[in-house]
């Protein structure tokens, strides 16, 4: 089945697709388009297994649209579709993850629209890159947290707590209300010069 014919029938995914070329390299594979797909496949597999993964920021940004598209295929076309089965089989090499995708993750988003994932950015961290003989090499990394919504873990960013009952808000609202009342009284009072 032609991928373009399938993609036309799907709605647009709701995350940003980056257009800057990213160097996605991995050990053992020569840097190429195939190596890039291998890196993305590992990230998608890991995110589906764990539902929340910490990655380098550029890799997280690059892998997020592919994860969105995979979940969208499951939601829109179902597990019996030929193209969906092919894509699931390629992007999730472990077969129990395909089961998890169809029975756990896809039912979460049956009545929801894209985006199905969240991406958070952490401050740059200085992590140990490798140890060479007696030297340790450290490097600063931009870290991103990629997660599938509806996971059982605690929320990364707490919901906005309603602060309207706090004493500061009460006093400030009172002051603003009094100020507005004074302005209204000034407007209602006729001017003496007229």
């Amino acid at each position: 089945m032609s991928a373009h014919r399938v993609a036309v029938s799907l709605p647009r995914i709701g995350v940003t697709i980056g257009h800057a070329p990213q160097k996605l390299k991995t050990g053992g594979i020569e840097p190429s388009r195939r190596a890039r797909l291998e890196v993305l496949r590992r990230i998608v597999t890991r995110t589906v297994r764990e539902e929340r993964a910490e990655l380098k920021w550029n890799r997280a940004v690059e892998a997020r649209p592919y994860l969105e598209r995979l979940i969208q295929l499951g939601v829109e076309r179902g597990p019996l579709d030929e193209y969906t089965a092919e894509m699931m089989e390629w992007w999730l090499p472990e077969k129990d993850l395909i089961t998890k995708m169809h029975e756990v993750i896809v039912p979460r988003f049956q009545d929801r629209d894209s985006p199905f994932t969240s991406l958070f950015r952490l401050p740059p961290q200085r992590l140990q890159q490798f140890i060479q003989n007696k030297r340790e090499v450290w490097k600063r990394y931009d870290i991103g947290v990629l997660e599938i919504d509806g996971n059982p873990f605690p929320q990364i960013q707490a919901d906005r707590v309603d602060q309207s009952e706090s004493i500061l808000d009460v006093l400030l609202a009172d002051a603003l209300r009094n100020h507005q009342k004074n302005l209204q009284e000034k407007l209602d009072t006729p001017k003496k010069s007229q």
Partner: protein
Amino acid sequence: MNEARARIIINLRLSMDSLMRVFSHRSPPPSFGFACDVGAHPSSTAQNLPMTYGSVREMIDDFSIVFGVPKYRTSKPKKVTRKFSFTRLLQPIDNLVTCPACSNIHPSDTICDACYAKVHQLTSEIKKKMMQYNPYVGEKQDKEVYVKFRGEPDAPAAVVKGKRVLEIEKERPTWFKKLTLKE
């Protein structure tokens, strides 16, 4: 360049003439003979050219090829000092904000890493419980996960229906909200 070369050859002939006056009793050596032969070819044009440099500008133009080279060698300590100077290593960060929950300082385009550390720790514990299944004997992650902490009463059956219950051996933190039917 040809003009400069001709002028250099003319000056060389002048110096050779002075040398020959001193050793007039001997014939010129073979190397000088080659120079005489080279100088002999533009003899017709040599008479028209000036015998010495006409001005300082011409002299400077001739020597301009030696102006673009360094005078001193930069030592390694000076290079390293320039490379790792404080103006390169220490750069001010001007987009810092304060976290409203824990007052930690972090860049404005990132989330607070102190708040995330608690979430990260609890997430790791739940992940360990989640991954304790054996796919080789047919166990699968085919159910939703419900997290139950120590000291909690059993949740109503409508919430946990069909879910896989993970039991954590510690109390529920105050910032991890409980799952309810509203979600």
